């Protein structure tokens, strides 16, 4: 598998996950649905991508997790942003802003 798109996707996924948690704590499915909702259904995050990313981000110290009860009283693992996570979100947002602006510029150029 070529590596370039993966890293780009991974960075995007991290940003989306961080953004989805900005409003408050969510469990895995909640994050997945929130991303779907935020991007108008463009990104559907499969569990096979979501969980490795979640665990990695927790190891990075951007999120922390705890076990809680879901809306209909199921045990679920919830994630929330840490301080480092918020900083990362800001940094990633800025970086993404720069990239998208640059890409847009590049596409507009004739």
């Amino acid at each position, binding site marked *: 598998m070529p590596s370039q798109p993966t890293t780009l996707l991974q960075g995007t996924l991290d940003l989306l996950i961080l953004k989805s948690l900005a409003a408050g704590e969510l*469990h*895995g*499915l909640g994050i997945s649905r929130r991303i779907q909702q935020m991007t108008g259904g463009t990104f559907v995050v*499969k*569990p*096979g*991508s979501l*969980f*490795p*990313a979640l*665990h*990695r981000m*927790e*190891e*990075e*110290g951007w999120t922390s997790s705890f076990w809680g009860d*879901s809306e*209909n009283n*199921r*045990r*679920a*693992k919830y994630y929330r942003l840490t301080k*480092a996570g918020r900083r990362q979100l800001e940094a990633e947002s800025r970086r993404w802003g720069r990239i998208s602006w640059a890409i847009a510029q590049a596409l507009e150029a004739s």
Partner: protein
Amino acid sequence: MPVLVKARSLLRNLFSTRRVERDLDLEVRSHLQLLIDENLRAGLPPKEAERAARIELGGPEQVKEQVRDKRLGHGLHSLIADCRFGARQLYKNPGFTLTVVLTLALSVGANTAIFSLVNALLLKSLPYPHPERMGTIYTRIAGSSAASDERHNVNGEQWQLLRDNVPALISAVSGVRASGVNLKAGSHVDYVQDGRVSAHYFDVLALQPISGRNFSEEEDRPNGPKAAILSYNLWRNVFGADPGILGQPILLRSEPYTVVGVLPEGATTPLNADVYTPLQPDREGEGRGTNFRCIIRLRDGATGQEADAQINRTWLSRTGRYELAGNPGAKVSYHSVPLQKGQTDSLRPQVLALMLAAGLILLIACANLAGLTLVRMMRRTPEVATRLALGASGWQIQRQFWIENLLLALVGGAFSVGVGFLALKELFLLLPEHLLPVASMPLDARVMVFTLAVSILTSVLFGMLPALVARRVDLRSSMASRTVAGSGNLRLRQALIAGEVAITVMLLGGSGLLIRSLTHLETLPPGFNPNGVVVAKASLDDVRYHDPATFQKLLEQSTAAMRQIPGVQNAAVGLDLPYEFIGNDWVTLDDGKEAGQQGGADWVYVTPGYFETLQMPLLAGRVFTNVDGPNSQHVVVVNQSFARKFYGGTNPVGRYIDKDMLIVGEVADVPISSGLDPVAPLQTEQTMYFPAAQLDRPLLALLHIWHQPDWIVRTAGPVEGLTSAMQRALAAADPNLPASGFYSMKDLLARTLGTQRIEVALLGAMAALALLLSAVGIFALVANMVAQRTREIGIRMALGSSIGQVMVQFGRSGAAASLLGLVLGLALCAGALRVMRSVIYGVGVYDSTTMLFTVLTLAAVTLLAVAVPTLRIASIDPARTLREE
């Protein structure tokens, strides 16, 4: 702190694997449940809801595996898993594992032991501050036939010039070795080693007494005050660590010496003595000859070049240049060398040769292990093929394989430290005392690192070949055939065996030559009857015995008392005995056509009865009697070599030497250890025997510093309690004269041939190890072939081959490899063994007996190693083998 968080995660992933896994499992399950709930809420029927949820999740195990792959420490985790798998594989193959570990333990262990020797002698710094500034002086003689560059002992003139005219150095001299003397403490007499040293000796070593001081220059002057410095052990063991010992007299050599200092615990010197006294070196007496050993230390700020220039300037201006005697026109110069090199130079070739032999053992072990792992690799081809088919990468397979090798190397290495330790202990017991200039050979950090490095290197060497072979595993053919086709590797394995056999032949040839040489030395015609002689040595380095009359009285009384011991036939005293190191002097012939001729000759004093006691045949004239006293004609007995060298073999009786000494007899030659012209460790040489009764005072004082006389008795058979009876006889003449040791002539012979015996023991052990490893290699080759081709054997036998034919067929591969190795090894011997020319005596490098011994030993071992595995063929039942396939 992200770093802390990361570290915590890593630790948790590595050590709380179970909890992390359970958490992950619960999370994935809960996710599935949430998905099902969502679908149910959307109105799907329960069955459909679960199906859709499972499709979206995409397999819980895969999700978990994806999480695991991304975890911190994933690489380490899989490494541990690989190690576990490897360890399990090794555990499941105990035969293979045991063979490899034993091979490694023995071969690496041999290297550990020999390297410890190299380390202690050549690498480890001397235990003194700034050892790199310490040295000794080498004399380089060029431009003559006898070119050399080595440490010489120095004479009194050299010493005084060095002390006074070389300001770049702190210099000191000592006696050549410590002398055994008697120390009287209270009513008790102890035999101790006295190191005679000049002032500043301890300054060169940078040793400061824990109490008291070093010798002053006043104490080092001839006839200066008699002072003593005690070693810590002597102070503690003999003087009970008496703090008031300073300033007290102790009785050494029957004279009072004032204690001026005590050395620190564990302090060593090159002399390794119990007590130190001032040498008081001078140009007279001892200082006339080169009887001092010199050590130097560069002063702060001075350089080696300055020192060398100063040494050359002052020593080249000497009047008496002994280096030029018999060597006219030679160019002589001097240079300082590091003390460690100076002390170990003579041992260096032997030690390095041993290291080389140990390296060869390692090569043999590698060849063996490569063969073994190759077979194992072949056997595992189906497993490897299965793993490749299941998606393992080539790298993963290789990694697994190398991890197993490394595990073997580490286990083998750990055992080899134990083997090395035991070997070293044995080695130290084997060595004669004071052969090595070091007190211990520790297994220190450097040795440990060496052992680890060698183990890993070995595993890389023996793993390389199978790893290369494994890369060529062909998936389809390996999966298809259940049996392993190993025939393609047979040639390779045979080549490995041939190589190791060739090395073994070389080691066998080398040790064979050493054994032949030792046997030659040990069975030299003795020229006397060594059986039934018992020897007592005692130190006469004692001021009372400088007086010829007292000395004479002691000899007469003690030998008379010894003759009274029941079972003793005869008794005498001599300095020295056959097989011993013998002093020498220049002699001038005074009459006939040889008048004025000069030459060196060995020098022995004896009491009447010496020749009878040793049963040395008298060839002409007479031996000494009690008539040869201090006031009668000075007489001398010479040996056959003397007559041959100086008188062309004619009868020497009646001739005069050294002005007024009359030769009265000629006796047979005996083998001695020569200091005159040593070409072999034992040889016969021109020797003069003098009556003890005719020695003068200065000579008595000097001789007994260097040598201890031997009291000898001859018995017809073993006598119970003979040594204590001899001690009582000595005490009857002088109650303060303890014997320093008792020996048989065999002991003295063994002592003189100590180096040769060790060479034989060490190289012999290496050769035996090589032989064992080669035998294991040949055995494994044949045994594997038999095991792999059981079916073929079954078919052959079913088709009418006899058991014998099949056995020959299979044994041939091992025998052929061995034969090839033998031929190769003999060719190598022809070239390599020539370097041994200087250490073998009485036997040529191309010695047919040694070659025959080598060939026969190898043939016997090969036969055994081939025969044992082929015997299994006899138990193969063709019918059953064929059914099993």
